């Protein structure tokens, strides 16, 4: 079934931007690259574009495969393709790698043109606001004035929300999934532990490990293991692994329980393919995002100027971005009398549920997306 309606073979593209990007920190990036993929066809009046904002470890490879022999398709392939919930027969879908990433867009591991060496620690710390600004530049590059929708889960959901605030006239619909209007202290605490694991790795070298020909693999591995614990619910972990042993108890610190095997596998895999400096920056962007802060914590005031229509969606077992946090967004939209629907999906998988092809979850997205009219709004 999935193979039949796959978008098929896709090819990433790179857009170069030579105008500087002013950052929230006060710094600026003199020039930058964004790597992106597109699926489907942009219609004549360019009114059917949907941008996918990725979460912490995501990238531009959202759907399809680079070659038929690829083991896995893009990370949200179950959602995007011909006749899938986000139907590429109707929509022109854009996936990109955020700035600071490690999959082709300018980031700490890419070459700083000023020094001809990897940026490393010198690469600025970006925010959700900066990402959305850079994504708007990508839209300009593609000649797209207004998005039919912006879609994102988790940190991607924060970007979707930010889109509606920063560029209200450029977004008709926002699908904000498993997100929050800011992180709780507990949530930021997990990020801090993850960062400490990386920063205290002897091979971190203050972020300039590229020059030493090493990577802080141990730190990144532990950071990812911690992340994985928080992305699953207790129940989901219990169901998946329980107290199952690989063999017998050996009175050692080797891998004895199935859960340990899973965490180590995930940690190793991630540490082999992700850049630690990017991980640090992604978690910081999460920590810093707080659109209500300039409004004394009043999210209703912060969302006063949004005009997009919203679908806000959460998962019952998600304790990292709990339904209560999504309801805060819904309340602020209701206070502003905006067009909003809110779905609280019963799911066992915790935060990771937003990537799973749950039938009801996908039915909600399919229904909402299929009701989106193609054709740009004009300023009232």
């Amino acid at each position, binding site marked *: 079934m999935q193979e039949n309606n796959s978008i098929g073979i896709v090819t990433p593209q790179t857009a170069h931007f030579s105008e500087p990007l002013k950052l929230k920190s006060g710094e600026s990036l003199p020039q930058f690259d964004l790597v992106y993929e597109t699926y489907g066809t942009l219609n004549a009046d360019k009114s059917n574009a949907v941008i996918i904002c990725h979460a912490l470890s995501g990238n531009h490879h959202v759907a399809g495969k680079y070659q038929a022999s690829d083991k896995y398709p893009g990370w949200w392939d179950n959602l995007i393709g011909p006749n899938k919930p986000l139907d590429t027969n109707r929509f022109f879908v854009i996936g990109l790698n955020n700035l600071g990433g490690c999959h082709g867009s300018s980031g700490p591991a890419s070459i700083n043109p000023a020094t001809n060496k990897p940026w490393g620690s010198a690469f600025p710390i970006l925010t959700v606001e900066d990402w959305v600004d850079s994504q708007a530049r990508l839209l300009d590059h593609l000649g797209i004035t207004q998005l039919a929708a912006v879609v994102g889960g988790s940190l991607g959901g924060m970007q979707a929300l930010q889109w509606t605030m920063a560029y209200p006239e450029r977004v008709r619909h926002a699908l904000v999934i498993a997100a929050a209007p800011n992180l709780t202290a507990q949530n930021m605490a997990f990020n801090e532990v993850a960062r400490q694991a990386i920063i205290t790795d002897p091979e971190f070298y203050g972020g300039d490990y590229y020059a030493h020909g090493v990577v802080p693999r141990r730190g990144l591995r532990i950071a990812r293991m911690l992340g994985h614990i928080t992305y699953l619910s207790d129940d989901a972990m219990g169901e998946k692994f329980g107290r199952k042993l690989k063999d017998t108890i050996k009175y050692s610190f080797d891998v004895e329980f199935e859960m340990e095997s899973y965490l180590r596998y995930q940690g190793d895999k991630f540490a082999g393919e992700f850049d630690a400096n990017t991980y640090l920056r992604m978690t910081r962007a999460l920590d810093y995002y707080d659109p209500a802060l300039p409004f004394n914590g009043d999210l209703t005031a912060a969302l006063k100027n949004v005009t997009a229509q919203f*679908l806000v969606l959460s998962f019952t077992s998600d304790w990292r971005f709990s339904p209560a946090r999504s*309801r805060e967004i*819904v*309340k602020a939209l*209701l*206070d502003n*009398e905006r*067009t*909003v*629907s*809110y*779905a*609280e999906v*019963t799911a066992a998988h915790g935060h990771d549920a937003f990537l799973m092809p749950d039938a*009801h979850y996908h*039915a*909600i997205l399919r*229904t*909402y997306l299929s*009701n989106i009219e193609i054709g740009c709004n004009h300023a009232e």
Partner: protein
Amino acid sequence: MQNNVKITNSITEYRQDFAIIANWVNFGSKVLDLGCGNGELLQFLRGSLEVKGYGVEKNDANLLACLQNGTNVIQMDLEDGLSGFEDQSFNTVILSQTLQAMHNTEEIVLEMLRVGQEIIVTFPNFGYWRNRMQITAGHMPVSKALPYQWYDTPNVHLCTINDFDEFCKNHKIEILERRVITDGKEVSFLPNLLGSLAMYRLKAQ
């Protein structure tokens, strides 16, 4: 189980129900429908009165139906109150034939009065003579308006028109208007005996 509590009425009574509610809602006003089911009342009010409508619904299938027909729907359990809604933020809050299935009956009415400038509450009148007949014959009533058996009914707080009048009096709720319907026709004579569906327009005193 909000999905189960919508009562299967004949089309006429159903329409009459909607027609009266439409009479009580102002053109272009902001309406919250609690236990909105598949969103048909809000759709009707949008079409006839161009209201800005939101529904609250717990059931997954109903939520999908609402999204399908373009009704703004918020998935939540009414038993938890209306904490996501500001005081007096709606012109009208509606609870249509759901009151009798609520556990926190008193709380939801008070919450409605907090959120809505006016509220509309409708419920099947347990004092209707056909119900009384069945009780007299020694059975729990089963009818078009109360289609459940005693062992599978979602209805836990059935009341009569007299009971609800008293509830309003005790809670300092002003009855702005009351209409009573049987088989799609209005009943004015002995409503607590001859009325099948009770409809109230209320506000806080």
